[in-house]
């Protein structure tokens, strides 16, 4: 998570200006469309739409690459490791129990892998392109009914806002102090036990220092008003363009699904 705060800077583009609620609806519809597609052409169309959206977001394709990498590490790597290991075990034991019996249906799984990646990417794109206040406002709108059944959603949202404020204030300080000290420890040629001990000291010092801010954070919580976290729908030119582009995509996908072009 090296540059998570700097990544917010990309939220200054066509996609970022679209109403967060409408964008959420479009993202959900796009994900549902991707799940229900059976045709390769439909998936290609959705992929192209996603690339176009990434470019319109003002981001380069590095965003797509980073997402693919995370997805690959968490989903694909275990899957392919599983295939290799099951095949390997199949050499020594009954093949029925392992590779052949493991229910490997490559084409089906590949299709599922692609669809899951699309959903993964759509979620990331939504988060990256939505300004935090708008996102918190959407969360409040969606989850506020839970307040009535006793779940303190509003309190958690205020805490979330305070955490984001606190992080903004303390990340630079942490990088220049604790991170640099820890870097110094791992440059030395001491034993692992010594390094762990020194790292623990840095962490204790950091925690002790941070807890001195308790009063400041209490004031911040008191100052943060839940009514500041709000959302109201706005419809302008950008929203119309976004909805229109989605309708065009949906039409093309329905056409490709019904005609079975590929």
């Amino acid at each position: 998570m090296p540059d998570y705060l700097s990544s917010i800077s990309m939220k200054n583009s066509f996609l970022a200006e679209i109403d967060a609620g409408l964008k959420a609806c479009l993202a959900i519809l796009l994900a549902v469309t991707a799940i229900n597609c059976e045709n390769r052409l439909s998936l290609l169309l959705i992929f192209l739409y996603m690339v176009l959206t990434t470019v319109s977001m003002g981001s380069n394709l590095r965003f797509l690459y980073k997402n693919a990498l995370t997805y690959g590490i968490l989903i694909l790597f275990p899957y392919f490791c599983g295939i290799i290991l099951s095949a390997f075990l199949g050499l020594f034991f009954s093949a029925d129990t392992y590779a052949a019996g493991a229910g490997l249906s490559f084409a089906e799984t590949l299709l599922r892998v692609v669809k899951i990646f699309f959903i993964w990417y759509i979620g990331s794109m939504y988060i990256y392109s939505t300004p935090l206040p708008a996102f918190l406002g959407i969360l409040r709108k969606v989850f506020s009914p839970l307040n009535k059944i006793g779940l303190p959603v509003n309190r958690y949202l205020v805490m979330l806002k305070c955490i984001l404020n606190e992080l903004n204030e303390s990340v630079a300080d942490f990088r220049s102090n604790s991170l640099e000290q820890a870097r110094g420890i791992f440059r030395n040629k001491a034993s692992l036990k010594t390094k762990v001990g020194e790292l623990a000291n840095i962490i204790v010092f950091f925690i002790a220092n941070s807890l001195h801010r308790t009063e400041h954070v209490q004031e911040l919580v008191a100052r943060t008003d839940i009514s500041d976290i709000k959302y109201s729908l706005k419809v302008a030119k950008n929203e119309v363009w976004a909805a229109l582009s989605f309708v065009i995509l949906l039409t093309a996908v329905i056409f490709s699904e019904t005609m079975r072009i590929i």
Partner: protein
Amino acid sequence: MNKNKKIAVIIILVCNAILISLLELIIPIPIPVPGVKLGLANIITLIAIVFLDLKDVLAIVLLRCLVVATLSKGLMMLLFSISGGISSALVMWLLYKKMFGLFSIKGISIAGAVVHNTVQIIIASYILKEPIVFYYLPILLISAIVTGLITGSISDLTIKEIRKREIFSDSV
């Protein structure tokens, strides 16, 4: 401890968990396996388990996952981090509070890492609808033991220091 002070401490601990995980960038992992990370944020979960109650521990894990998902990885990642984080926190809390003295902090940390990785593999298997990913579990379990031991060692020293310096009793 009054409610406002408790909220402030939870906010600070969530921030600490996120910032401490930045240290992972400079610490070499003994087993370089894709998807394996030290999980230094677990130190804060362990501290919370020792010094706070279960509700606060779960709030810290939940808020940390939400903030990290909001700021970096995206919505799908939330499914993995919340399920792994909450289940490992619950297991660690049970081991610490209900089986007091049977497990050291290092042992609890290892158990937490094992549960975290196992739950993540279960989720991956459920999403892919492919049980074959479970073949990867032994590799993840071995790495969980190593990373759990490292974070457990740091947590152990940190908790001892916190007790010695009475950091929490001063501020809370």
